[in-house]
């Protein structure tokens, strides 16, 4: 079967696998999340106007 290339803006979703959501509770990327929270505290958020 010939493969088609996806160049759309959205990704092709092969399936939904609810077991992936376990990664939300594993404390992954803690350093980045801490940095995000630090930036929120020190800088805040920009003015999204549109």
């Amino acid at each position, binding site marked *: 079967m010939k493969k088609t290339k996806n160049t759309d803006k959205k990704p092709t979703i092969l399936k939904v696998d609810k077991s992936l959501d376990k990664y939300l509770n594993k404390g992954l990327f803690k*350093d980045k999340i801490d940095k995000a929270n630090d930036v929120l505290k020190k800088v805040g958020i920009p003015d*999204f106007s549109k």
Partner: protein
Amino acid sequence: MKIEKYPVIIGATSMVFEFTSEGIRGGIPKLVIYSATHLHNFYNLGFGDKNIISGQIDDEVITNNGDSEKVLATVAATLYTFTDKFPEAMVFVTGSTKARTRLYRIGITNNLEEIQEDFEIFGLVGEKAWRPFQKQTAFDAFLVKRKKK
């Protein structure tokens, strides 16, 4: 972005995505996670290689699989799926190293017109202020939000 993307598997929450990089070093599973922060609607985007033995995620590894443009395009494409579900979300993006943050900046710059069709994008300057993204400007992090149509 007209760059080819990998197909993804998505979690039921639309906050976790998995895809497989296919390159010169074989198939390498990648995970993209949108994590909540202290502020409602403010999320961190994290992605890295998934160790198929330990299940651990490494966001500092240099994969060198020869497909970085396709990998970044796939990660960027998950923003559409994520913000379809969370249209008010602001997504914080930074690299695990300065070099990787620079790589993200180059990727954004190369696709800026198309990105700005759908997203507002700001860059963090010196960890002191947000500025609208500009080409040829160094940023420490990025913040994107889907435009209202």
